[in-house]
């Protein structure tokens, strides 16, 4: 099935249309509300594309509750899904968001309270929506085998390599981004990135920017080779410790966004993919536990030492290759 053409043929191009890129996926967003479109352009401005749309998202905004009431509702909000064989119906109990996905046409309709885009509290839901749309498009385009998965992490570019600082919510990803500023590297995103899967030949993994909204306004649309992954731990002294593959595997898999798409799906499929990806990444990437304090200098000094050790390791591997 040519999903790209099928998805695109269902869309009327108008000024109320945006095409957003996430990895090799293109999502066409349609919305008649001008204010919402302006906000979407602001959020996704670095990721606009004119590629074929793999998936189409028809967005309708509703304005049922005040921003104050919305923010009160958010923490209690749970999305219920009803999976059907053709796609997924979803809604929140108060109907501040509801919609449907038709996998046959690659079309998602979403009716959503306008405050989702205005509110800091709504950011997590907007990101969750982006992940769902990305994985749904991967289901259509790659038959459920995404070429890259989303990793919750702060990504910092240093010397043409990306270092990921990963950990659960509240561990300090945004703090690391703030401590980086413009002095110690370039922040790609402080909340999440796409990490490619290694090929048969264990190629260097690539990190791609994705329009996930973090606390800080860093959303670069660029692709850079991965240097190493730091798993964050707040401590009283800054230091880095190399992790075994198993330690890396068990801790990293919790930082991978669950590859859930909008259709009937078994949990086994989701966790099998996370397990496969985590094994690949832990096998091909140096992992460190980074204990850190709020001292900026010592953080980047330790990261610098790790970079030097990786460079030395790389040179030694090259020598071994030559001798072989």
């Amino acid at each position, binding site marked *: 099935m040519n999903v790209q053409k099928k998805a695109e043929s269902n869309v009327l191009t108008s000024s109320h249309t945006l095409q957003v890129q996430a990895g090799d996926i293109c999502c066409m967003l349609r919305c008649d509300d001008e204010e919402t479109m302006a906000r979407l352009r602001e959020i996704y401005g670095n990721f606009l594309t004119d590629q074929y749309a793999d998936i189409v998202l028809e967005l309708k905004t509703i304005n049922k509750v005040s921003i104050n009431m919305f923010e009160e509702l958010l923490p209690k909000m749970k999305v219920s899904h009803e999976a059907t064989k053709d796609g997924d119906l979803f809604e929140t109990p108060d109907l501040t968001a509801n919609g449907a996905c038709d996998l046959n046409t690659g079309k998602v309709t979403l009716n959503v309270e306008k405050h989702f885009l205005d509110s800091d509290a709504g950011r997590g839901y907007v990101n969750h929506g982006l992940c769902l749309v990305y994985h749904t498009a991967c289901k259509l385009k790659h038959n459920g085998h995404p070429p890259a998965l989303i990793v919750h992490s702060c990504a910092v570019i240093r010397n043409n390599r990306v270092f990921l600082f990963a950990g659960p919510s509240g561990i300090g990803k945004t703090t690391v981004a703030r401590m980086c500023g413009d002095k110690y590297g370039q922040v790609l995103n402080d909340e999440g990135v796409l990490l490619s899967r290694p090929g048969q030949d264990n190629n260097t993994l690539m990190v791609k920017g994705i329009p996930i909204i973090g606390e800080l306004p860093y959303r670069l649309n660029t692709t850079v080779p991965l240097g190493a992954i730091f798993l964050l731990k707040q401590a009283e002294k800054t230091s880095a410790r190399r992790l075994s593959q198993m330690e890396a*595997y*068990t801790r990293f898999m919790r930082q991978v966004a669950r590859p859930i798409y909008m259709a009937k799906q078994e949990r086994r499929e989701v*966790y099998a993919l996370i*397990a496969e990806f985590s094994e690949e990444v*832990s*096998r091909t990437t140096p992992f460190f536990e980074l204990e850190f304090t709020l001292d900026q200098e010592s953080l980047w000094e330790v990261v610098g030492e790790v970079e030097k050790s990786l460079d030395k390791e790389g040179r030694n591997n090259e020598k071994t290759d030559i001798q072989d």
Partner: protein
Amino acid sequence: MRKRISRIDGIIWRKVGEEVAIIVLEDTSNSLHILNKTAAHIWEMCDGEHDADDIAASINERFDVTLEKAKADVDATIDKLEKMKVIEYD
């Protein structure tokens, strides 16, 4: 009669280095179990072709332990894996 042992279909597991990680999906949560090098070898031999004696003989040969010790290790590991509901006898 030989009682061959198999991994239950659909269990999520990966070989990670020389160890094995098994994810057991439960109703509302998941659990992760790590098998060390020896247990990982036992797990990999639970392929429907081997019984506990075959596995113990392989452990005895590969890990430089006595057959008696290998049998005890295999029995203990098989018992744990059975309790985790990740293997079954054919």
